């Protein structure tokens, strides 16, 4: 029973992840903007919005090299 429950969780997660990755870029951007609009109404999510959501929205705006995880700009570890 426990095995079946775990499998169900993994399969659900895989289905959501695959749908997200394979959906057209425009739909993904629209979904992110929808989540952003919802998060804007909840001040307690402000940190998460800035840290995680905004960079994703910026990346989702493009495709190919723009949207590729390999091209994520990383700030220097410490300001010079």
């Amino acid at each position: 029973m426990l095995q079946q429950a775990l499998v169900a969780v993994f399969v659900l997660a895989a289905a959501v992840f695959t749908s997200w990755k394979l959906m057209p870029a425009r739909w993904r951007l629209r979904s992110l903007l929808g989540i952003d609009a919802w998060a804007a109404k909840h001040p307690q999510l402000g940190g998460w919005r800035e840290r995680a959501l905004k960079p994703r929205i910026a990346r989702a705006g493009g495709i190919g090299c723009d949207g590729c995880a390999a091209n994520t700009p990383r700030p220097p570890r410490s300001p010079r």
Partner: protein
Amino acid sequence: MDAAVSTLPLRLALVGVPNCGKTALFNRLTGSRQKVANYPGVTVERREGERTASDGRTLRVLDLPGTYSLKPTTLDEAITRDVLLGRVADAPAPDLVICVVDAVHLPIGLRLALEVKRVGLPMVLALNRMDVARRRGVKIDVARLSAELGVPVLPTVAVKRGGADALIEAIEPTRWPAARSVVAGQVAAQVTTNGRDPRGEDAEQTQADLRGVLSAIGYSPPVENHWAARVDALLLHPLAGILVLGVVMFLIFQAVFSWAAPLMDGIDSGMAALGGWVKAHMSEGPMASLLADGVIAGAGAVLVFLPQIVILFFFILVLEDSGYLPRAAYLLDRLMGWVGLSGRAFIPLLSSHACAIPGVMATRTIPSWRDRLTTIMVAPLMTCSARLPVYGLLIAAFIPREAIGPFNLQGLVLFALYAAGIVSSFAVAFVMKQFAGTRRYSPLMLELPDFQWPNLPNLLLGLWERVRIFVSRVGGIILALMILLWVLAAYPEPPPGATGPAIQYSFAGKLGALLQQLFEPIGFNWQISIALVPGLAAREVAVGALGTVYAMSATGDDLTAQLEPVIASGWSLATACSLLAWYVFAPQCLSTLAVVKRETNSWRYPIIMAGYLFALAYLAAFVTYRAVAAWS
């Protein structure tokens, strides 16, 4: 200036001629890891990164495509001009322009700097590659150059740690009051009202200004490198050069198989042992099956090919960094022109060997729309790294590990498959040329970069990026698809009293039986037919899917069997060759089609592309299957 304005992020733009080191400086300034190579045209769109100034302000750094002039001839050059002139809707004109000039080839970069200066934006000039310039006897009076241009001039060596420290100091907002005191809107207004549109400038006047500045700073050109000239005489020779290119490519594919074999065997055995361990130590049930048959057999089957990908990209990066690739472009220009491709198509087609997506985007450097479209349409025929696992699996299973003279037979076959991709792309371009009618050939104008030893940190970084991308794909989309495929292959469970493998009664089994009718004429069994479906997401997924499907099909002692021996004993040679032929053409990558739609702004071309590639794949697989079956 009020407080609100002083906290606005400053926008900095890196501008310069192609291959002067803008992206290396961008990486140095922002800590990014954008691709850097020793040939022009690597950056084809604006990229943005950030750094924090010592006063806490955010500096937004834009890396713009290289251009020789603000009078653009290609799409990527137009991006640079439009950003500088504040014509891009979501990107106001920069607060500060960092004009990057290659000190070794000062006049060509300085000419652009004079044009950029006329735009009227605050500017600093980064005199890059100063170390090489000094070694080659270039004389530049930096202080005098700064006085002549009326802007700060900072010597830099972008590829060396600390090589951009002077520039970093100079772009601190506290050192740059002019930029700090101007808000973005005012800069845009300044460009419109004060700055003249540089397209209207007299080219002869710019040239005269350039001569004046060069004379004032006591410029002396670099001493000719006789060693490089002799190497160029060989590499650019119409016959010897082609021969060298063929030998270089041939040796690379030999190394891919010869060097990778022990590492691949190690990973393969590790995965098989892990799968066996999971089955032995977990109680029988869906979770054990998911882990062993879905995750380990599926994702593990793809991970095995990591050593081949690392070795292939090691050589590609070495060739990129050394400056050899533009010479290869020069050599192939005439041939490419003959088949209807622009010489400028070389770099996009070369990029397509890593992935068709950057290749399609790199076609922006091609000025003619027809040439660009032809290049886009044939780019997916180049053998991308996602095909390597498919080729690697089939070659290892069906081609014996033996030598023909000094050569590895498996490496020879891999070389032939890569060559098949190139030859077929040329053939398709030739056919497209016939449909498009006679065109004027646009010759390749390419600045040959200096030879240089590959930069080791750059090389390691490039390799690390390839490893990271591959492993994250295996751990991301491939893993997720394998889990979903496992569900389709495991459910519904077989009815009581069923004798065959459980997968035959599952959704996947039924789908495979249905698809097999379509693919039977080209020799594909139901397992291959199933694997082609998730393989639409990305080509290498098909290998993982085969791993899962065969693991689910296995019974009794075969449960932990590895994929390679299973297909070697289960498939005919004709089926294997047919699948190889299929993968030379099949456009099984939705992302590539999406990028083609974006780059052509139309659904028409991706639909045509998918249609003609599927038709070619089916035809090639059919002919191959029939021919090999008749012969064997």
